[in-house]
């Protein structure tokens, strides 16, 4: 596939099965957290953290990016992550939005 495939071993069916089990396992943890009901902020942090891990597993193994040339990753992902972080610039406003409204 790429020059990197010579260095990394190509994923086998066993790898795919392991990734699938890991994804189901992380999902189970998430559902369990929803069942026991933690503080919203703690819960949100853990859920998003687990989701990022799951997304990374899908991208690296199922979408094969780990076995592509590194330049493909560098072209696509730093930009995406930077743009997503930029979206959070407005987030602090959400706490102030109610008090920022002009009096009626």
């Amino acid at each position, binding site marked *: 596939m790429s020059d990197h495939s010579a260095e990394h071993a190509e994923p086998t069916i066993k790898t795919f099965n392991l990734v699938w089990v890991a994804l189901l396992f992380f999902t189970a943890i998430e559902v369990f957290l929803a*069942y026991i009901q933690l503080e919203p902020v703690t819960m949100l942090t853990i859920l998003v953290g687990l989701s990022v891990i799951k997304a990374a597993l899908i991208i690296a193994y199922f979408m094969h990016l780990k076995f*592509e040339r590194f330049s493909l990753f560098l072209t*696509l992902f730093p*930009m995406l992550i930077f743009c997503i972080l930029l979206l959070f610039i407005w*987030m602090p*406003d959400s*706490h102030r939005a109610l008090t920022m409204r002009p009096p009626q």
Partner: protein
Amino acid sequence: MSEVKAAAMDSVWDGGVSPYGVNSKKFGMWLFIISDALTFSALLVTYTYLRLATPNWPLPFHFSPSIVFSTVMTAFLLTSSLTMVMAVHSMARGDRKKTVLWLLATMFCGATFCGLHLTEWRHLMVEEKVTPLSNPWGEPLFGATFFGITGLHMTHVAIGVIYLGIIAFAVSRGKFKHEDVEVSGLYWHFVDLVWMFVFPLVYLMSVKG
């Protein structure tokens, strides 16, 4: 594939005519996926913003049956990703018959996901009286964001099922190469990936306390 690699190897610098070492179809799909990821990111960030900015955001989902139901949907989507990987794997070895079977399994899981999702929508609309513009709990934005995000995702799944159907049909007739199946796989995994964020943010964070 091999000519792409050969072109990259022949070049003076580690790039040449094929700096990424992938064919143009695959690179095009990656670019589409990144732009689509930004669309979903914007929707999910906006949803989070609205939730934080709105006191008394409705928490309508009971653990049973709503969360159990959506967990089953998640399991179907995750399994469809595994069957898709198997389809790409079979196609790499030139086994078209197995590829078609795995693609059909993927389509089945995707279609089941859509079916379960629509059942849930029907339940919300008919029994809980939630619409995109109003709901009995007071905050109308709930319906707009819920149906907006899950609706766009379900549209992606439905398009994916049709896309895989076309690929499966062509592969069964001896057309298309490994790269075509691989590119459709990229799209399918992306749809799965988006759900990995929609499920916790829209469902798990809205369980009735």
